[in-house]
């Protein structure tokens, strides 16, 4: 928890914002656990409910365990017109999971996301913080193979 303590000190000194703190925890642990929230609540003197209601608002701050790689496929209009539904089907088939699920080995979670601003290279998706564009079946298989 040393890193978390450093972050807490940074926050207390006004050097970073609460959302930065949340994101750093997610970056290192994969999600914001109840224990993390409780720890933050005690050390920052902010009610647990307030921390939870803030964190749970954001799509990119999971408060439950997810896969090591969170795949977020954009299914908004531009991606949809360029075949994102096929991309979702390919991912479901390759990973043998449905949307909102995580693979048995805890490696991949599959989700939908709102527009990620890659409409000029649609269809697109994010895996953790990385952007993947102009997707097709072959490209997806290659990406998954590299991560497996």
């Amino acid at each position, binding site marked *: 928890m040393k890193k978390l303590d450093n972050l807490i000190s940074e926050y207390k000194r006004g050097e970073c914002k609460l959302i930065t703190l949340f994101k750093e925890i997610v970056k290192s642990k994969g999600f914001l656990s109840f224990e993390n929230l409780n720890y933050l609540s005690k050390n920052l003197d902010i009610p647990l409910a307030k921390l939870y209601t*803030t964190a749970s*608002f954001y799509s990119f701050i999971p408060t439950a365990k997810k896969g090591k790689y969170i795949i977020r496929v954009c299914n908004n*209009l*531009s991606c949809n017109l360029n075949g994102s539904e096929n991309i979702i089907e390919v991912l479901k088939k390759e990973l043998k999971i449905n949307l909102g699920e995580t693979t048995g080995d805890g490696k991949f979670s599959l989700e939908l996301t*709102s527009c990620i601003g890659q*409409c000029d290279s649609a269809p697109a998706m994010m895996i953790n913080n990385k952007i993947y564009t102009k997707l097709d079946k072959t490209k997806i298989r290659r990406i998954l193979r590299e991560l497996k």
Partner: protein
Amino acid sequence: MQILRKSNWEGFKKITKMKRKEIINKVKESGLKGRSGSNFLTGLKWELIGKGTRYLICNADEGEPGTFKDKFILENNPQLMIEGIAIASYAMDIHSAFIYLRGEYSYLKPKLEKIIKQSEIYLKKIKLNIEIVPGAGSYLCGEETAILESIEGNRPIVRRKPPYPSESGLNSNPTCINNVETLANIPLIFLGEWDNNLQLFSLSGDLKKPGIYEIELGTKLEHIISCGKPKKELKAVYFGGSGGCLPYEKFKNLRVDEKTISGKGAVLGARSLIAVGKDRNIVDISKTISEFFVHESCGYCTPCREGNFRVLELLDKIKDRKARIIDVKLLEKLAYHISDTSYCALGVSSTTHLKCALKYFKDEFRV
């Protein structure tokens, strides 16, 4: 492209010789308006900032479906935006600025940090600190008061106005919130030979060459769309997710600006045009957009939270050919009810797409 012009702090060097009031007047006279789609006169916004400790927030949280113009600037000419932040801060006597960078663009953070570091010599001169605050995947956080809540560490629910952020914004201090494209244009105003009418358009959808195009406001819709080279005959053009749509053939000669588009019932917004081919079904498209609003509704007010959920339910029914005439009537009623009674702009604009679709493509909502 005008927006790709390199300034390398030349604009900044000019303004440090000017009085604060002179700078604000020059921005005001330039006619520059908020490029997020708000169209509020930027110089006036600067003039209205209250007294005391003030903050500047650069809104880099473009989340409107089909919009990627700010990404284009952040990727291709971010120095211009940082210089714009410095000029704005100097003009309003601000010493603490934030860039609220959407979570989806977090890959751009190292690049921005590098430029801020390289700019230290200029930033120090005006005692300005710039902090990048990461967003975390929320469309609502593009709204200026939701950003304030997010930076303050609260659940980002839109604030009731007044008071406006210019009087009571971040931590109750006067705050100016400007969009990436708006700020990137600031140095250009001072460099001269700058055209306010040249604006960025995000073109996507059924196009062979989707991308960012710098086009003069008032250009015919057909000419704008032809830049992106349609893949097929077009049925409609959508203005982002919340701006609604217009039938393409009927309006291809329309000169595109804020007024002409709103005159036809749609909203130009941040100039994001999504081309939709003739083979597409408008009900399917309405469903895709509606899913977005169901996901992004914050849940604070009932019309937006429950209404959009019901809209999606009805669209599903129509798509599956299980709807009755009364369902289409209910859909139309709901569309107006949601926009009339929602708490914030997200809810109010969440059914513009539906109102336009029912106005121009009603025959597709068959039962």
